């Protein structure tokens, strides 16, 4: 039942994030527990066609909650700072917490502009204020930028007040080679497990077709209908296991009341 509780938590988290842009749902994987071998016959019979003894199982457990990284639906928002990644396994690179390593990654492209001190420019940041990285460091737009244009390969251009365009940088987009080894660090960010070699997990992105769409956001890939069905399944399994406990309890009560 404890494992079912964890599954319920996973489903609840998925449902709570069904509207979060860029969220990737998690699935719980089950496995059965060890079996205890009981010798129930002291002498094996030669005509027996099954292995000796009986095995009593001890239940089930959750072995992993894997992230399912399928592409979520793209919703057009017409906001020029909303970006959606169009292929699976691609991520934006953002600066780590308080400028420290390790770097973090995100799938959610809802960005904002934050003015730098001394009016030296506008930096492209996430909702928490962390800079979005380009190939030459954090992306900083000139202070007199009127609007921003990002093409489908992630090249950022600032349109200045006088109508001229200034190339700024290219968004640093990386490929998650082994996405199942990325840890969720909250606020839509992902991080490489510090014990693993980062080069094996995240690699440079090889351009192939349109990658970024400006003015759109990728929605969560949670299928609410599917999650509700799993929720009902988990509830039923919970009830059945509770009934098993109740039977075991009653049987012990019967033994106790023999005399």
């Amino acid at each position, binding site marked *: 039942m404890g494992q079912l509780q964890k599954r319920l938590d996973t489903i609840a988290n998925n449902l709570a994030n069904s509207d979060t842009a860029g969220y990737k749902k998690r699935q719980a994987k089950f496995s059965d*527990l060890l*079996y205890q071998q*009981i010798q129930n016959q002291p002498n094996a019979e030669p005509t027996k066609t*099954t292995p000796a003894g*009986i095995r009593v199982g001890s239940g089930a457990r959750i072995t*992993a909650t*894997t992230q399912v990284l399928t592409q979520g639906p793209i919703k057009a928002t017409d906001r020029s700072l909303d970006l959606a990644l169009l292929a699976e396994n691609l991520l934006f690179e953002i600066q780590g917490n308080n400028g420290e390593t390790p770097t973090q990654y995100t799938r959610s492209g809802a960005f904002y502009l934050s003015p730098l001190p001394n009016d030296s420019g506008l930096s492209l940041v996430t909702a928490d204020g962390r800079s979005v990285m380009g190939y030459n460091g954090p992306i900083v737009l000139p202070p007199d930028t009127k609007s921003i244009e990002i093409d489908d390969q992630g090249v950022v251009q600032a349109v200045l007040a006088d109508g001229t365009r200034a190339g700024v940088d290219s968004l640093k987009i990386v490929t998650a080679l082994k996405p199942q080894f990325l840890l969720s660090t909250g606020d839509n960010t992902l991080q490489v497990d510090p014990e693993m070699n980062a080069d094996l997990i995240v690699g440079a992105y090889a351009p192939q077709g349109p990658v970024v769409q400006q003015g759109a956001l990728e929605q969560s890939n949670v299928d609410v209908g599917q999650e509700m069905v799993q929720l009902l399944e988990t509830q039923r399994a919970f009830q059945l296991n509770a009934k098993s406990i109740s039977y075991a309890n009653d049987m012990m009560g019967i033994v106790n009341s023999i005399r």
Partner: protein
Amino acid sequence: MKNLYNKTTKILILGVPPVFKGFYTAASGMLALQRRQEMLTNNIANINTPGYKADQASMRSFPSMLLNEMSGTGFFGNNTPEKKQIGSISTGVYAQDVTPLFVQGDLQQTDLYTDLSLVQQGGFINEETGRPSSILFTVENQNGETRYTRNGSFSVDDIGNLVTSTGEFVLDVNGERINVGANQFKVDDQGYITVNGAQQGRIGIAFIEEANMLVKEGSGLYRLEGAGAVGQAYDNPNVNFQVRQGFIERSNVNIEETMVNMMNTFRAFEANQKVLQAYDRSMEKAVNEIGRIG
């Protein structure tokens, strides 16, 4: 007084008092039913485990004993003891076997390309012996031994090997570990693995002739006891199956049947308790009241 005459040499209950034989029989009944209930509870706990095969228990009666009646025939005033057989009595019951039921479970579509499942067409019952055979994935455990599993919830480890969700390596037709690198791979319904358009290998699917000799070890693994034949399922023309990617095979536990069996087991357990109580009261009378003076 009845004198019990033991027919077989295998006595499974020692120190049986000659009078209330049924006392230990009822106790053995309770123990056997308790094993059965444990097995049913384990089945219920595993209704969400992919590839889980429901266990079935078989109960067996202990070897029967013959009952003889000692009586005397009077003849010219002599009493010649004579033994007369009056039938046999079973001395109890025990849970003899817990065997997995190798019936195909339902398929559930997941969105993970690392989930594989086996879909067998037909029940694979051996016609001569009536015993089932089965097909399973071959895996290598941490000690390098070969194990089998139906749980196709695989994933890829950090060096690119295809592994189960508990870390065993999935083997190909040659018994080697499968390395798919960092990329997405495709598996077709005959088990051929394609990585980036190039064929990489073939998933090893073992055909176990005597499925009843498979022993559950936990974590979805089966071990083959005895020297049964293990061949690749692809080579066997009578075996029709498919490998489906993106699906997992659900547990084949039948919930309604299991719950009904649990109810029956519980009531039988209760009935055995009543038998024990009846013997207890009889013995109480025998011990405390027979021969009491005053």
